[in-house]
C-alpha cells in the first residue's frame, strides 16, 4: 500500500472529484515512485489548468487487486522536480506535462519535447523556446555517442513503406546499434483539446480516428467513460457485440502483423496469405457495421448495429474459414528453421526492463508480464467471460510473434462462443446527461495493449479534461530498448514486432 491516501476506483466507474485527494507534489511523487515496487504501475499522469496553476493527476493501476488509485497535486510556478531517475516509467509523462503546460522538469535526464507543440499555457515554455514561436518538429538535442567509427543514422519522418511518419535516430558502431532514439509528433492533431472545445457532433468521430486501426478500442474506452460519467449502462447485447468487435480488431491486426513479420524476414508465403486474411477479418467487421475499421459501430449507450440470426451464421462460417487458413499460413512460421533463426533472440526485452518501463499489452506479455486489462480490470462483457491470458517468457521477436498466434486462437474461440449465446434485448439506450464534477478512468485492452482514457467534468457537467493514453505511449520506449546491441538491419523486424501507433502517441 502507498503511504498517502488515494481515491480507489474501478474501471469505468465514476467518482466525485471531491473524493480524489490533493496532496503536496512530493507526496504524490513518492506514491508514484513506490508504485512499481508494490506490483503497481503508472497508467496515466497528466496536467490540467487550475487558475494560474497546474493540477497534476496520477492514475496508478493495481492489477492484482483490480482497482485504480488516483491522486492529485498542484504545481505553482514554471517548474517541478522530476522523478524520472527514481521511476523511469514516468519519463514520457513528465515530458508531456512539461511540453503541454510549460513546466520545466528539473532534473529530468531526457528533458525534451514529446510532440513539438506549443505550450497550452501562453507565455510559458518548458524548453527555453521563444513562447510565441512554435517548436520545430524533429529538431532537438538527440542523445549522441561519440568516438572513432561511431556513426549516426537518421530515418524519417517519411519512410519507405506505406506507414505513418516518425523520426528514428540510431547511434551505431558498425552494424551494431548502441542506442536508438525515437522522436515523434508529426501526427499531432490536438484530439484531446478538440474533444473539449470542438463541436460536440465531432467527438465520437475524432475518437474513431484517434488510431484508425484501433477504432473499436478507443471508441469503446470513450463510450465506457461517458457511460460512467452519466451513470448509464449499455445493454448486455451491446456489451457482447462490443467485445466481438474488439476481438475482431485484434484478429485483423495480429494476422496482418504475422504476415508483415514474415515479409520482413523474406518468407513470402505467410506474408502473402496473412495479407489477404487480415482483410477477411476486416470484412467481418464490415459485415457487422459496413466499415472495415468498425466506424459507426460503438456509440455511447450501446452499439448502432444489431445482428440477426442470418448475419450471425454468416459471420460464424467466414470466421471458421479464416481461422483454418490462418492456422495453415502461420504454422509455416513455426516449422521453418530460417524464420525461427531470424525471430529467436532478436530484439529482446527482459521482464525487468518491461516492468521498469511500464510496458503494457502484447509487448509486456511477451516479456512474461501478466498484464491484460480484460483480466485485471474487466469491464463490459469481460466481467462475465474471461479470455485466458497468454504470456511468453523470451521477450524477443519470436515471443511477440508467437503470442499473436496464441491470442488469435483465444479471440476466435471467444467470438464463436459469444455469437452462439448473444444476450437478447435492445442494443442501445439513451445516455443520461454527464454528472458534474466527476472523474472516470476507462480502460480497454486494445490489440496493442491498455487503452486508458481519463475524463473529468466541470460544475456544469461538460467535459473539462480528456486524457488519452494509447498503449503506444508506454511501449515506444520498449522498442527503443529492444534495439540495443542489435544489428541495425533488424530494425524493421523489431519495429513490426511491436507495431506501435504514431497517431495514437501523437494524439
Amino acid at each position, binding site marked *: 500500500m502507498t503511504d498517502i491516501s488515494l481515491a480507489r476506483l474501478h474501471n469505468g466507474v465514476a467518482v466525485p472529484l471531491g473524493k480524489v485527494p490533493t496532496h503536496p507534489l512530493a507526496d504524490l511523487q513518492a506514491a508514484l515512485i513506490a508504485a512499481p515496487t508494490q506490483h503497481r504501475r503508472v497508467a496515466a499522469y497528466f496536467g490540467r489548468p487550475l487558475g494560474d496553476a497546474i493540477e497534476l493527476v496520477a492514475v496508478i493501476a493495481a492489477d492484482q487487486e483490480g482497482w485504480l488509485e488516483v491522486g492529485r497535486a498542484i504545481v505553482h510556478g514554471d517548474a517541478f522536480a522530476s522523478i524520472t531517475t527514481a521511476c523511469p516509467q514516468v519519463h514520457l509523462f513528465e515530458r508531456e506535462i512539461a511540453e503541454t503546460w510549460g513546466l520545466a522538469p528539473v532534473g529530468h535526464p531526457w528533458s525534451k519535447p514529446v*510532440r*513539438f*507543440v506549443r505550450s497550452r499555457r501562453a507565455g510559458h515554455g518548458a524548453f527555453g523556446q521563444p513562447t510565441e514561436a*512554435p517548436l520545430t*518538429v524533429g529538431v532537438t538535442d538527440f542523445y549522441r555517442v561519440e568516438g572513432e567509427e561511431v556513426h549516426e543514422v537518421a530515418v524519417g*519522418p*517519411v519512410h*519507405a*513503406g*506505406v*506507414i*505513418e*511518419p516518425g523520426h528514428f535516430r540510431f547511434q551505431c558502431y558498425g552494424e551494431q546499434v548502441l542506442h536508438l532514439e525515437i522522436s515523434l*509528433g*508529426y*501526427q*499531432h*492533431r*490536438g484530439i484531446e483539446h*478538440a474533444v473539449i472545445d*470542438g*463541436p460536440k*457532433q*465531432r467527438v465520437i*468521430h*475524432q475518437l474513431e*480516428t*484517434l*488510431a*484508425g*486501426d484501433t*477504432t473499436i478500442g478507443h471508441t469503446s474506452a470513450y463510450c465506457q467513460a461517458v457511460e460512467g460519467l452519466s451513470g448509464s449502462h449499455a445493454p448486455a447485447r451491446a456489451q457482447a457485440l462490443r467485445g466481438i468487435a474488439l476481438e475482431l480488431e485484434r484478429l485483423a491486426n495480429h494476422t496482418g502483423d504475422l504476415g508483415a513479420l514474415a515479409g520482413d524476414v523474406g518468407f513470402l*508465403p505467410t506474408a*502473402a*496469405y496473412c*495479407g*489477404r486474411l*487480415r*482483410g477477411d477479418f476486416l*470484412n467481418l467487421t*464490415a*459485415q*457487422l457495421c*459496413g*466499415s*472495415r*475499421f468498425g*466506424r*459507426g459501430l460503438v456509440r455511447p449507450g450501446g452499439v*448502432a448495429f444489431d445482428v440477426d440470426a442470418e448475419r450471425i451464421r454468416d459471420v460464424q462460417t467466414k470466421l471458421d474459414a479464416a481461422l483454418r*487458413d490462418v492456422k*495453415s*499460413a502461420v*504454422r*509455416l512460421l513455426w*516449422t*521453418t528453421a530460417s524464420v525461427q533463426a531470424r525471430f529467436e533472440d532478436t530484439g529482446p526485452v527482459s521482464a525487468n526492463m518491461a516492468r521498469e518501463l511500464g510496458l503494457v499489452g502484447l509487448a509486456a506479455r511477451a516479456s512474461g508480464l501478466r498484464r491484460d486489462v480484460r483480466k485485471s480490470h474487466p469491464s463490459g462483457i469481460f466481467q462475465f467471460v474471461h479470455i485466458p491470458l497468454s504470456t511468453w517468457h523470451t521477450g524477443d521477436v519470436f515471443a511477440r510473434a508467437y503470442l499473436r498466434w496464441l491470442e488469435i486462437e483465444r479471440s476466435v474461440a471467444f467470438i464463436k462462443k459469444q455469437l452462439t449465446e448473444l444476450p437478447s434485448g435492445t442494443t442501445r439506450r439513451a445516455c443520461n446527461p454527464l454528472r458534474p464534477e466527476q472523474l472516470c478512468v476507462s480502460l480497454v485492452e486494445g490489440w496493442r495493449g491498455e487503452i486508458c482514457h481519463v475524463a473529468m467534468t466541470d460544475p456544469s457537467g461538460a467535459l473539462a479534461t480528456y486524457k488519452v493514453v494509447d498503449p503506444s505511449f508506454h511501449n515506444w520506449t520498449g522498442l527503443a530498448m529492444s534495439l540495443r546491441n542489435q544489428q541495425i538491419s533488424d530494425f524493421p523486424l523489431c519495429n513490426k514486432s511491436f507495431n506501435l*501507433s*504514431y*497517431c495514437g502517441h501523437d494524439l
Partner: protein
Amino acid sequence: MFRPLATRIMQGHRTSRYPRVAPTLPDRFRGAPTVDAAKCTRSCQACVAACPTGALSLSERGPVFDLGRCLFCTDCIEACPQKALGFSRDHRLSARTHAELVTHGGPLPATRALDKKMKKLFGRSLKLRQVSAGGCNACEADVNVLSTIVFDLGRFGIQVVASPRHADGLLVTGPVTENMKRALEKTYAAVPNPKIVIATGACAISGGIYAERPETHNGADSVVPVDLYIAGCPPHPFTILDGLLRLTGRLAG
C-alpha cells in the same frame, strides 16, 4: 519442404477478378449517398445540424452532400425525420476536382482520365510515394492492402515505391498536420516533373474531422496541387483502386 507446397495448394488462388467482375461489398457498406428528394421538406435542417463535418447543406433541390467532407457515418440518416437519406453500395467515389464531389445523391459522374500526354507517361506505369500527413492509419491500411494478393495493384502497372525520387507522384493521406507540412512540401519537391498528387480520404481532401483546427491544415490541396480526390473515411480499397484505374484511363464508363 512439402508443407509450404501443401499450404500453397490449400490457400488457393485469391486474386479478385476485378475489374472484369464488379466487387461484392457487404450489405451495410456505405457508398455514394442516396436522396429521396420527394420526402425532404427542405425546411427542417436536421441533417445539416447533425453532420459532424459540415458536409451537408440544403438547396432548393434538397440536401447536397460534399463527399470530400463526408465521413459516410450515419448521423444524418438517423437525424432525418422523413427518412429521405441513405447510402448505396456504389463504391465509385473519386473525382478530379473537389467541386465534382458535391452531389445531390446518386452515382457520381465517371472520373476523368489524365490528359493525353500524362496518360501516355503514366497510363501503363505509375509509381507512387505515399505520405501520411496526420492520417489515422486507416487510409494507410487500405492503401497498403492494395499490394496484397487480393487486389494485386502491380498487375495494373501501379506500384508504391520507397523514395519520392523514384516516384511519378504522391498519394497523400491525413489533413496535413502543422508538423508534417514541411515534410510534405519537401517530399513533393523531390518527385521529378511531371508529377501528380492523389488526396485519399476525407482528411486529405478537406481536413475532414480535423478541419479548421489550429494543429492541422485543411487537406493536401492547401499545400500541394491535387489531381485526384478519393472520398471516404477511409475509402474502401476498391474505391481507391477504382480512382487510380480511372485516372490512368484503364477503366472507363
